[in-house]
């Protein structure tokens, strides 16, 4: 699946987008998998209360299932307007 990062999450991880091969069942499982990879991921995902997640471009939550999901995006709370 495609995993996208925005704002300081993108800066901390160091890339805007990557393809991830994963068997993760939920968003939390994916976060645990990514965090175990390298420190920069662990640092970005250290405080999940400071993060939001979208699945296929719809806001979701960390307990959500990844079944059938093609695009996951992680970002800080939005500041539009």
């Amino acid at each position, binding site marked *: 699946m495609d995993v*996208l990062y925005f704002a300081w999450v993108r800066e901390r991880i160091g890339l805007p987008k990557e393809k991830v091969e994963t068997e993760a069942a939920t968003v939390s499982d994916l976060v645990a998998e990514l965090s175990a990879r390298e420190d920069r991921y662990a640092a970005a995902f250290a405080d999940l209360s400071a993060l939001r997640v979208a699945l296929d471009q719809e806001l979701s939550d960390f307990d959500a299932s990844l079944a059938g999901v093609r695009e996951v*995006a992680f970002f800080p*709370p939005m*500041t*539009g307007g």
Partner: protein
Amino acid sequence: MRVVVQEEAFDLGAETNAFAAGDAANGAIVTFAGVVRDLASGDLDVMEIEHYPGMTERALTKIAQEAMDRWSLGDVLVIHRHGRLAPGDRIMMVATASRHRKDAFEAAEYLMDYLKSRAPFWKKEITTSGAEWVAAKDEDEDALTRW
């Protein structure tokens, strides 16, 4: 209903005039424009606005559609920019048209409250001394509960 996400500047006057000329059944037109505010210190150089292409258009369309469903509106316009903006530049505007002003005012406030924390934009303030992401405010999230 029209939703526009663009990097270029927009003409607030021309957009307002075109929107207001839509339909004589709309006795009330409300517009709101957001402007890049300088820091209290006065040294903001650039406001960089990042967004999530694809999700941004979907989120704005959903918010605009919800406003149309909830209030009696003749039309809704949302324009939101991204990219590098300077203090004083217009970031965004919303316009609502309805038979009577109450619906137009309320719907415009609703649009703004949701645009603040449910549309995937992130602002970064760049000054001569560095760059900092603008943190979301609790009060912006709290503002949604009134709807």
